[in-house]
């Protein structure tokens, strides 16, 4: 019963996120609006961590598992990436290095500046 009740809270936040997405007609996905909403509710103390702790643990512990069907869906798209996987992997490698370097250096420079 407890888990169902906790799940109900999370589902209500999900539904509100979808509702906001349609109401405001913006390009931010309903799930992401739900995330912002939940963060707001936690910060304002309307929802306490222990009210959703069991469901949180279940969802976060199995996060990777929920992506299996989405990944398997790649089977329907082999034609789209056929013969392109080497450039795709190259793009991902270069881009990932660039992101790490630009992010890290920006933070390091700004932190030094703030502490001076």
């Amino acid at each position: 019963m407890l888990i169902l009740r906790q799940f109900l809270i999370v589902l209500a936040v999900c539904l509100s996120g979808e509702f906001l997405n349609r109401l405001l007609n913006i390009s931010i996905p309903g799930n992401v609006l739900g995330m912002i909403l939940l963060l707001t509710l936690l910060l304002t103390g309307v929802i306490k961590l222990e009210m959703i702790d069991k469901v949180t643990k279940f969802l976060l512990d199995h996060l990777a598992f929920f992506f299996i069907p989405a990944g398997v869906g790649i089977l329907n798209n082999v034609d789209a990436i056929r013969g392109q996987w080497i450039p795709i992997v190259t793009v991902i490698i270069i881009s990932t290095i660039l992101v790490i370097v630009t992010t890290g250096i920006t933070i390091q420079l700004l932190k030094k500046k703030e502490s001076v």
Partner: protein
Amino acid sequence: MDILDTPYFGLIISIFFFEIGLAIYKKTKITLLNPLLISIVGVVAVLTIFNIDMAYYNQGGNLILFFLGPATVILAVPLYKQISLLKKNFVPIIAGIIVGSITAIVSVIVLTNIFGINDAVAISLVPKSVTTPIGVEISRQIGGIPAITVGAIVLTGILGAVIGPGVCKIFKIKDEVAVGIAIGTASHALGTTKAMELGETQGAMSSLAIGVAGLITVILAPILINML
């Protein structure tokens, strides 16, 4: 085969390969042998070898997929737990994640152009640095192919975990906050598992970056794609 025409089939092979993946990862501790990657490869192998239609798998698969929504929303919880660390270094952290997220989006658009990768695939690679539930949503929003996005996200995550610490060392990124945010912004939860091994601050910062980078990319991706 009729026996496959149930939701149980997709559920069972997904859980089966995930358990195998977890066991392999725990035993070897090799980042490349990521449980999600092993599960995807395993399920794809079974479907291909036995020539099983995706529609059969999806009966169970769709049940699993449902949990992605609540899983995205619940990412607010780790973000909430890190909020004091964020407040302490607010400007550098937010500026760093914004710069990193812009770099991620722009570099993918420019590089896919240089390599002549077709548009639908190129667009699918744009959200590769953010966490999967948000990345899938962004992909849908900007007209990408979510399945390709998931593949790119998993690959990026594994890559960030494998090369992240080395890249930081080469470019003299030593500050613990900077290292954590850099790895988290570039390679979401999979990178974060590595950042946690580097230290408590790095891990906490990396997990903070997952949520913030996701939010910033949601806003910036459509804008930057329209501009370029």
